[in-house]
């Protein structure tokens, strides 16, 4: 309902007049290949013309936009309403030092809050995947005449900064992952930002503050991370899966194994004033990694969200 409300609010804001004969503005961050391709005419499949001859978008970028949504979440059999918000930004750039393209997805100020008897929230200041693409990956062996061995992977840097979890029902305290950085290899090496599969080690530091005091845990590249995504060319469908498994070392209380898996599906249902309303379905399982007590739990959620400013013009 909140999502629909926002969509209607956006409808109330008059869309700028567009000249049917004017060229559509260039999208801010297309894939690198598209960025260098000649601009397509108004009749592009993503911008059909309405009865008055005005273009309207039917393609969207799941990695772009201002997201605000609400839904229902079930955790270990207990249901609750939830609210999601965040800023997604997808950019492409060519490295100045290496001359190769980067596909970057940034997610800022992500908030996920839920009510009910087990209310709480998570907040992530910054989360990103930065993938450097090479048409022909290689390993250089610095012999007198440099030797080039095939290395069929793109390399992805996956940083996350400031991930806070607060569960009111667990009592006073919070869990803060101050920083996490993953170094992932992507065997798919897609030339677009719509497909990726990164697997690799992760280093992180987490601080748990409870009534018993503070507890520091680190994972010095002893955790394996998976991050995969598949999006349709028109951005109407988006599938994302991620996983994390490995050992963390408590500075005071030894080593423990933890794992986490999450999958989500998004489908654009309709667009109001060119702003897409998205159905979001997701499921997650955490093994000794949830909350202050590092409990195991599963979660399923369904909701609607408005992803404003994600239309591809």
């Amino acid at each position, binding site marked *: 309902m909140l999502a629909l409300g926002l969509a209607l609010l956006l409808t109330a804001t008059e869309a700028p007049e567009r000249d049917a004969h004017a060229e559509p503005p260039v999208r801010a961050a297309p894939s690198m290949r598209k960025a260098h391709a000649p601009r397509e005419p108004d009749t592009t499949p993503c911008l059909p013309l309405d009865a008055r001859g005005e273009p309207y978008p039917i393609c969207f970028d799941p990695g772009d936009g201002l997201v605000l949504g609400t839904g229902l979440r079930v955790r270990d059999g207990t249901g609750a309403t939830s609210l999601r918000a965040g800023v997604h930004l997808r950019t492409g750039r060519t490295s100045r030092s*290496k001359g190769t393209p980067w596909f970057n997805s940034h997610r800022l100020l992500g908030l996920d809050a839920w009510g009910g008897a087990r209310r709480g929230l998570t907040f992530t200041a910054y989360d990103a995947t930065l993938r450097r693409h090479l*048409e022909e990956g*290689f*390993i250089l062996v*610095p012999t007198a005449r*440099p030797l*080039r061995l095939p290395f069929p992977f*793109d390399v992805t840097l996956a940083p996350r900064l400031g991930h806070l979890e607060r569960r009111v029902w667990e009592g006073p305290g919070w869990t803060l992952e101050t920083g996490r950085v993953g170094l992932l290899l992507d065997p798919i090496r897609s030339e677009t930002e719509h497909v990726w599969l990164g697997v690799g080690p992760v280093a992180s530091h987490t601080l748990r503050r409870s009534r018993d005091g503070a507890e520091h845990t680190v994972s010095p*590249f002893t955790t394996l991370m998976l991050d995969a995504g598949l999006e349709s060319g028109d951005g109407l469908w988006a599938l994302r899966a991620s996983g994390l498994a490995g050992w963390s070392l408590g500075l005071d209380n030894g080593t423990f194994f933890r794992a986490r898996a999450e999958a989500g599906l998004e489908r654009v249902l309709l667009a109001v004033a060119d702003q897409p309303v998205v159905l979001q379905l997701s499921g997650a399982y955490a093994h000794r990694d949830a909350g202050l007590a590092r409990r195991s739990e599963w979660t399923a959620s369904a909701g609607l969200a408005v992803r404003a400013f994600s239309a591809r013009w």
Partner: protein
Amino acid sequence: MLVPAVALGCALLLAQTEGEEARVADVLPVLRVEPAEPPVIQPPASPLPRQDWYAPKVCLRLPPTKEVPSGQWRAQCDAKARRCLVAPRYERDAEGQETERPLERVRACTEEFHTPDAALLKTYRLEPAVAEAPPGWYRDERGRVMQFNFDLNRRLWLGGAWAPLWREGDAAGRMRADFGIAVEIPGEGRRLHRLRFIETELYLGDLAGFDSTLMRYDFSVERKEPLFRVTTFFGKPRRYDIDINLGLWMEVLHAEELERGATEAGFLTWGAVHATLDLWHSKDLVSYVRVRAGPSVERDYKNGFTTLVPGAVLEGDLTLDRDGFHHLRLGVEAEKVLLAQRVEGRPLRPERLRVSAGYEFILLAINDQPLSLVVDGRGAWREDLANVPARWEWSAAAGLRYSLWAPARRSAPKAPDVGE
């Protein structure tokens, strides 16, 4: 003579306008030379010659060959020798067959129709060559380009190492994770600014701890004028120039936490400012051996008081080879903690001594990002840990470091110098 002269004048006038070069050829038919025979590409020499990064290139269309069916070549010509070094415009596969992938990191070549004497060039001796590569990069015979020169003073690094520590004859197994960001910026004149951000070493296992600095800055300078002059008047007056390259070193928010047995210690340096004196530095200022000294303000947050810590350091950071593959780092450091409150089990004004030597060597590069081997040895003698007798403790570390960014060094040579 008059007509060609007028035509040449017109051509030169037209050539003033950007994008009009094509017309030059139109008005200069006299310069068009049609080769009597189709151009012939000579058999390849071994090793293949290399085009010069800085020399201009012409995009020539030559008769298709089995290996280069598109007939598209880049030519670097020498009119005096009537010779062109030609390289295909597209990369080749393992069999030498042209692919659809254009050459990466080449300079733009002038299209044939913008080159009035293109036909003349085709009458030159055409010798197969490897296309040019930018300084610090190498292009193989298939036309694929790769970086072979790395600036490890401009990078973001992530690393891990096995770093055991020996104290009083006992060895403690530890792992070390390290990361940080290094930036080097040449300043005006002969000056080089160095910055380090979140340079962190995290020790895990027995005797765990960490050492992290939010920001560190320093610069080296090569002054044109001597700092001061000494003139002597014994006999004939003589003047002696004293060149002293003084600089600055500072750090902000440096935290160190460690445990030894039952003792836990934590120190947070709010800020430190040292004056530096380069005993030696390389021509490009990148490598140096220097001394530095100055005060820092430190918080002993386990014992709850703030101290003043003067220190002096002799240190060196040397890049040993032209391509940035070998790095040697050395350091000897002494500190004295002043204005401390009395803590049971340690002196009122404790001292610290540290020595270190490390070597980093690039093993290989993955997608132009270097992976290096790091080995180092360190020793420390400190009195600032309560109830821990002051003893020398030694650690050795061996591990790997993966660096992002790491562009070619500013002094990188051109590709033909590879292996020389």
